[in-house]
């Protein structure tokens, strides 16, 4: 008997593909690859651009990096004593962002949990539309709301001398961050496999136990990403805080004090700084500082996720 190897029948030849379709496919793959890599390219290009504008002042003799980072005195246009100290500005950014997150995270995550677990489909659709609407409001409109409506409410209910302060900026930023946290958080919760939910219910878990002990831990990465995006929006927000925080260079001693954030400072002063002057370069250095702060926040969150994953 002939050996029953599969070489008995010769494999049919593959149908020839036209050259055009082969190269066409490679072309599209290259395009998709380039689009994916482009995000990295853009970030590096932005970093390179702002570093190039800020570099001359870094190497100048009169400029001291310690003073820039740790002094509270910001007098870039002084006629007698020019000082560039961003500590008060960084404190302003920190204060407003922390307050915004303290207000936004409970409401955002709570909203995400409600949307994914506790409400009926029709209510869910309407709520999602309303929340997307909140996200679509331009930031300058938020700033205007903070400057007019919110400041009057704050003066009436807290007896603060001025209604534009950390509290005002924090509330406005929280209102801007909540839609992001809810949207992405809800997606993260939806992505938890049904088998987890079914298993928990089969074991007799109540809805609250299901959410708190199964869903939230399982969706931890996605929820952390949602909060991070909210933080990113709060740190980078310019127009709303420019109008709602009172624009005062000082370290706040309470939430009723006015502050100035790094972003609002750049927006207010870049127009008058003559291109290439020291003031201009220091403002770009502030941009580098903002970039670094955002990267550090993302890095810290990444490490936390890794730590969480390792412990599991």
């Amino acid at each position, binding site marked *: 008997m002939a050996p029953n190897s599969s070489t008995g029948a010769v494999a049919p030849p593959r149908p020839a593909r036209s050259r055009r379709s082969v190269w066409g496919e490679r072309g599209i793959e290259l395009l998709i690859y380039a689009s994916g890599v482009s995000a990295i390219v853009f970030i590096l290009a932005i970093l390179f651009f702002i570093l190039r504008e800020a570099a001359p002042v870094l190497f100048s003799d009169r400029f001291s990096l310690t003073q820039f980072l740790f002094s509270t005195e910001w007098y870039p246009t002084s006629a007698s004593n020019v000082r560039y100290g961003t500590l008060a500005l960084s404190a302003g950014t920190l204060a407003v962002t922390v307050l915004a997150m303290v207000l936004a995270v409970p409401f955002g995550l709570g909203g995400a949990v409600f949307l994914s677990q506790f409400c009926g489909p029709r209510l869910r659709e309407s709520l999602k539309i309303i929340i997307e609407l909140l996200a679509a409001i331009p930031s300058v409109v938020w700033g205007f709301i903070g400057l007019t409506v919110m400041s009057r409410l704050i003066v009436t209910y807290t007896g603060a001398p*001025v209604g534009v302060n950390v509290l005002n900026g924090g509330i406005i930023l929280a209102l801007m961050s909540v839609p992001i946290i809810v949207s992405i958080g809800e997606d993260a919760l939806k992505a938890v496999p049904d088998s987890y939910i079914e298993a928990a219910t089969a074991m007799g878990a109540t809805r609250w136990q299901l959410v708190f002990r199964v869903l939230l831990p399982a969706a931890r990465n996605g929820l952390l990403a949602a909060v991070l995006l909210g933080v990113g929006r709060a740190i980078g927000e310019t127009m709303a805080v420019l109008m709602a925080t009172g*624009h*005062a260079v000082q370290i706040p001693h309470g939430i009723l004090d006015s502050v100035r954030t790094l972003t609002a400072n750049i927006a207010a002063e870049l*127009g*008058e700084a*003559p291109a290439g002057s020291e003031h201009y370069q220091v403002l770009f250095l502030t941009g580098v500082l903002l970039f670094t702060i955002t990267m550090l926040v993302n890095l810290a969150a990444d490490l936390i996720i890794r730590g969480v994953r390792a412990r599991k």
Partner: protein
Amino acid sequence: MMGQPVSGTRPDHPTRTIAAAALLAALAVLAACGGGAGGPQSQTTTIQNKGSDTMVNVAQAWAEEYKRVAPAVDVEVSGGGSGVGIAALLRGTVDIATASRNMKAEEIEQAKRNTGRTPHEVIVGYDALAVYVHQSNPIESISIEQLADIFGERGATVNWSQLGVRIPGASGDTIVRVSRQSSSGTYEFFRDHVMGNLDFKLGSRDMNGSKEVVELIGGTPTAIGYSGMGYATPAVKMLRIAARTGDPAFPPSVENTLNKTYPLARSLQLYTLGEPQGAVKAYIDWILSDAGQKILEESGYVPLPSEQRNK
């Protein structure tokens, strides 16, 4: 049978429909843009005017009135502060920079280096820089030294009680200082003339424009701030200013500005690169004439006395 698509649920060529719709939309946008720009084919000259926030309202009023006088000339006005206007002039992106302060020596040097031309200054009016407090504040007058003590970096005055003032119905004693951002000519004028070029105390609320300063003071009983005389509202009052403690104090007014008894009188000027030519010169001549000066006066500023005007 399984697998048969329900008829009518899919359009035949979705890609083609989308492409056609996109092409139509693009054509519509191009047609709209082209149509708008290709309107009246007359020769309109545009004059770019940027700068002082103190002067932005009167600059806008001049631009609108001048459109009636010379319809072929379009004057585009924007604010941002005297510093922003001067910076734009140094880059050569505007024709006229309005400023409520004088150009500094280094700015003039930079203009010569960047553009090869020397800035030309034209004084178009005067203004009194008023110090505002809330209506309910009992204080009536203040001296330059006391102002320097409140606003200046080394100043020791932080509470109203240190000035012997008690504000009825106020929630605290701390003086709420309302100032301007550093791009403002008003800010620089105040720093030069009240604090002798020493810096402001940190922690003042630095507002965007002259109007915002008065609005904030109007809503805050413990506030004090400075802005142009023309921005007064019924919710605030202007203090009389004395040059030194013990000297007579004068209120901001047209006559006190012209006869220099009011200590914080300042000139409002326009800057151009080199002597103004052509359409810009005609516009500036009109501003210096009685017609332009009448608009300045109606806006709340002090017009040029007749010997400085254009006839």
